């Protein structure tokens, strides 16, 4: 059955490299590929109070309406992607049930709930060199004055599009490349981070 199948991440070629880089303490900057989480794309009109309220009730947290912000509840993280678009991130395998609950709750409210679990993989970059590693390929202002924990952005990392989510002040970032770009993004990041892993 599908649930018993191992979900394959994108950077399979580098499984071994993941392990070795993860183990390398160096100055503490680490790169790892996480198990791909469940992912749901949500579209709906923020001007429709029924939509906002219904989604909030199902998720157990408010829908982030401010650009580039993230909210979360116990089993879901909600990333703002656009003025009428969000990415719901769940533990792997939990997405199907949440999709069903959302669709049922939304009923005839104009919205779109789409399973996009396969769309992206997730990499985690953490440690003192993490910000400068990203600065090598990302033109966003990642300075704490401009980008903080709880913020997210869709942007470019080198030549591939990503969703970037800052988790904490370590700093830790979750990076969601498109699945087909995940090997490229992995190679790019492991090259860029090497300087901080002496």
């Amino acid at each position, binding site marked *: *059955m*599908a649930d018993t*199948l191992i*979900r*394959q*991440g*994108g950077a*399979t*070629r580098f499984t071994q490299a993941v392990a070795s880089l993860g183990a390398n303490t160096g100055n503490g900057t680490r790169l790892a590929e996480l198990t*791909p989480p469940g992912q749901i*794309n949500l*579209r*709906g009109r923020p001007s429709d109070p029924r939509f906002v309220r219904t989604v909030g009730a199902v998720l157990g947290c408010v829908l982030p309406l401010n650009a580039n912000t993230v909210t979360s509840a116990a089993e879901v993280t909600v990333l703002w992607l656009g003025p*009428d678009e969000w990415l719901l991130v769940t533990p792997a395998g939990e997405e199907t049930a949440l999709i069903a609950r959302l669709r049922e709750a939304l009923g005839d409210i*104009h*919205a*779109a709930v*789409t*399973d*996009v*679990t*396969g*769309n*992206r993989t997730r990499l985690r970059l953490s440690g003192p060199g993490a910000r*400068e590693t990203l*600065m*090598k*390929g*990302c*033109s*966003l*202002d990642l*300075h704490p*004055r*401009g980008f903080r924990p709880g913020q997210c952005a869709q942007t470019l990392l*080198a*030549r*591939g599009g990503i969703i970037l989510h800052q988790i904490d002040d370590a700093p830790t970032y979750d990076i969601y490349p*498109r*699945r*087909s*770009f995940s*090997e*490229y*993004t992995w*190679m*790019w990041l492991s*090259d*860029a981070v*090497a*300087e901080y892993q*002496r």
Partner: protein
Amino acid sequence: MTKAEFRTPTGGRIDRGRPVNFTFNGKALQGYAGDTLASALLANGIHLVGRSFKYHRPRGILSAGSEEPNALIQLERGNRTEPNLRATQIEIYEGLVASSQNAWPNVETDVGSINNVLSKIFVAGFYYKTFMHPQSFWMKVYEPVIRRAAGLGKAPVEPDPDFYDKMHIHCDVLVAGSGPAGLMAALAAAKTGARVVIADEQNEFGGSLLASRETIDGKPAADWVRDTVEELKRFPEVRLLPRTTVTGYYDHNYLIMAERRTDHLPRGLAPKVSRQRLWKVRASQVVLATGAHERPLVFADNDRPGVMLADAARTYANRFGTLPGKRAVVLTNNDSAYQAALDLADAGVAIAAIVDLRTQLGGPLAAQAKQRGIRILTNSAVTATYGAKRVTGVDVMTINGSGESVIGAPTKIDCDLVLMSGGWNPAVHLFSQSTGKLRYDDALACFVPNVSMQAERSAGACKATFTLAGCLAEGAAAGAEAAKAAGHGEGEVPALPSVERTEPQQPIRPLWVVPSTDLVGHGKAKHFVDFQNDVSAADVLLASREGYQSVEHLKRYTTTGMGTDQGKTSNVNALAILAKSLASPIPQVGTTTFRPPYTPTTYGVLAGRDVGELADPARHTPMHSWHVAHNALFEDVGQWKRPWYFPQGSEDLHAAVRRECRAVRSSVGVLDASTLGKIDIQGPDAAQFLNRVYTNAFLKLEIGKCRYGVMCKEDGMVMDDGVTTRLGPNHFLMTTTTGNAAKVLDWLEDYLQTEWPDLRVFLTSVTEHYATASIAGPKAREVVAELAPDLDMSAEAFPYMSYREAVVAGVPARIFRISFTGELSYEINVPAYNGLYVWEQIMRVGAKHGITPYGTETMHVLRAEKGYIIVGQETDATVTPQDLGMGWVVSKQKPDFIGKRSFSREDTSRSDRKQLVGLLTEDPNEVLPEGAQLTATADGHPPIPMIGHVTSSYYSETLGRSIALALVKDGFQRMDQHIFAPLGGKTVKCAVTKPVFYDPEGVRLHG
């Protein structure tokens, strides 16, 4: 080891406790840590470092900075060799190997110097004028010879072993330059809490202060620099970047800086650190504190080794503890050279004379020089220099009343050093790159920043403020204002450090050509303007006489200012001489355009990590690893790597494709179609939306049915095609071509967001969520049936162009019965993370039928046999659906859809447009090249009208012959006629046919 007899006994910023060994032109030499290659060579008494570009004249070190035109060096050997580096910027390190360029067999005895004897013929435009005929000689004879004789250093032939990277940075205030103005600007901005980046091209901060004997706050200037840098380092939001050249200034305060991170270290020592880094800066505000360049004087034979800019000599003495000579003559038209003379005198250089072009003496510096007993000759000119590889003396004469010539008898003065100062050019390069407008200042005889076009301000010498107090004050004000403009502080200017009072300078006397015994261009002497390109005042005047009177034309014709130095020392002299010859004011002549980079920048640093595998992302499908393991060769489709074909054993492309085609037509094959764009479309108006964007009707598509659609742009030309399936009343899945996936999504959003915001439709890209396996062939049904035992696979229950949901190999899947091969075919979509697993199950189950993985080449052949188009291959944005013979896909009933109105335009509705036809060559084994032009007749003399071209062409295993598709003018009317493909040596005769070669009734599809 030569004793460094040109070192001062003490002083300078070199570390005398750390000797550094290096090699120049094969000779082992020693300098100290802190030396540049130029200062170390001068300390060893070496001035002759190169030969000039055209005449191969001996040349010495002219400057002490990045403006250096002469001392171009080939650094290192083998894979790390690098040409055209300025000796004045190379920091020496243990084991450095450097050599001169443009000299053979060596710089001391150079065969090419014969050109100097023949210089009368090597005038401006010589190459243009001489090597015109015969034309065919240019590539084969002239150019290679000239290239060998001229040119600069040699590019490395081996791959670069170092790596380079880039970094983005945002800041409130970027300060370019770290002299007194730059440091004060950074300090003032830092105190407001602003994010500050300060960059300087030199190895340490301080700029001109590093070579100054002035005091600031009662301490030596260099100590003030040290303390200020320490203070700056304590601000957490300040980033100090020495060895970093701000090299480009672009729109919206976007600047690039090139940092040399390891060039000062022995090569290969820091393998984990990039050698150079390109900083991409987005600055709210910029303070330009880039200083000024001293101008050479244009006098007779002003290019002998030992002729040097006055302030450069002062820098060598004060900063590097190096004496560039023992007995100097100073030639000047302004006050600043007096400071150089005084400092050099204190350092131990005998000042034989100060030759001042000005008639009047005044000011405290002149008074000091006079007091020291230095001989000062006013209203005088150096009219000749002597010496072959080193200057040995000069002639000095009195200038006449007009300043145009000299009178009386020459006085010869022996010397081994001639210091010149023709005034100062503010380094307005970055200002000018930012599109700021310059103004010519008559009193100072230089161009200064006038109108800013971006959020920047200049401070200090780059704004023609030449006093220390002025630079400090302007820098502080600029830093505070910049910070305020970026939202930090109230513009409060920090307390200024105290400096000695400076007397006002006496005015400059800009004699752009220093008069000598012969008129310029007559006699043997040369008055060089551009040292690097060997352009003399006579060349400028000749160009002017020949009509090259725009400064931009002058530049191209004479090449002045076109070298690696981009004319930092020559441009103003050249344009001033041009202005004089035209009797125009200098502002009217203007300057050439300043362009990035400020100084030469390596290709490596511009490429950064965008090399090798990182040069461009390779997009992989979930089944990629299987394809690799099964010997696939890949084709690039956009950034995707798609399996091209799967050779077995020693098969070539053709053998593999024939085998793969046979398998699909006779049994079953499987294609990885994951790369197709997939857009999930939901909303009450989804059907209406599709009805407007596709040329055919979608309103009444039944749930569970698929429909092929074509999208056109408003001009009626085909943009994309694909199959769209109705998943529910308000829910569709659209597929797009692989290459257009992102473009189509943006385009659909455009219409939804701007033209039809009333439509309630949401689009979500699910391209990467699904892995797609297309199973095709007569045995496809058996394979899918075994994988999905719960699904009724009968033709009645699951007909062609329909869709079912089922569990396939244990995975929830969407199955589409659609075909791009003309065979019974199912496309199975499963979540990408299960794609590889399901693929492997397909292969396992299909094994008993000999299931054959096939690639894009076989797909292309199979679809061409059916006459199915590929957007971008059969179309090129000038092709309508009707041109493709696909009028059936264009609705006649719908009142409007994108592109409809254009189909009735006169040009679009012509009946003789280029139309898609099939071609069968007379020789069935002849495969036409794709792109081949087609003609209506087999013979005749050019020009023969072209009536079209071949868009697709293959050998068809199924048909046992070649087939081709072509766009041919009036093609529909040419059925069964013959047309021709002239292919160079032969002309191939082709019959025009319908573009469907196989199973035209579609029996196999519906089976």
